[in-house]
């Protein structure tokens, strides 16, 4: 299945892109996805411990199953306001 990853701010600058599509196996959850991306991208690994994940604009606090077409945002600590 295919999900779209979105990154912002410093992670976007480090990776040099704001979004991309990932092909992932059925049954992948958000925890597995982050681990996979951290293994591949040193910039994701560097913030792995502070990244929070959102799926389809909703914060997720524990790993959730991903579905085909999901939007997954990897969010470094927010600093609005």
């Amino acid at each position: 299945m295919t999900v779209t990853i979105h990154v912002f701010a410093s992670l976007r600058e480090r990776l040099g892109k704001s979004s991309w599509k990932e092909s992932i196996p059925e049954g992948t959850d958000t925890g597995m996805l982050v681990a996979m991306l951290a293994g591949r991208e040193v910039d994701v690994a560097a913030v792995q411990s502070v990244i929070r994940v959102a799926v389809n604009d909703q914060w997720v606090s524990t790993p959730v199953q991903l579905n085909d077409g999901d939007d997954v945002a990897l969010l470094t600590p927010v600093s609005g306001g």
Partner: protein
Amino acid sequence: MSPILPFTPPIHVGIQDSPLSLDDLWHFLSEAQGGGIAIFGGTTRRVTGDRITQELSYEAHESMALSEMRRLAGEAGERWDTLRIGILHRTGVVPVSQASVLIGVATRHRGPAFEAARFLIDELKVSVPIWKKEHYEDGSTEWQGDTWVR
């Protein structure tokens, strides 16, 4: 007999890359014809410790930021006796002294206005996906809260 439903205050949330209008927010809130309006404005501070800021810039995960802002406004409306709630955030460059965020609450009585506004800015800073970048006078830049160790 139909149930008496809790009042849901009109809510206005928005993200824009242009200066925020205090007049527009006040107009929206004053239409509630309540007894109090509290507006908090978060502005670009010039001096932080020994560092001088030239400007801030903001980036948002816009669709999620809007839904989080709506969610927080709804929660404030449930916790306090509010009549209208407005949350506006600016993206892009925000020069010193200008507002990056305006949070406004209209209420019947003044207490809930202050309390709800305080709740909304505190929660916005924790859960709304928007990021602030410092641009210092010495030319350096820094995303606030970055934990990069390289």
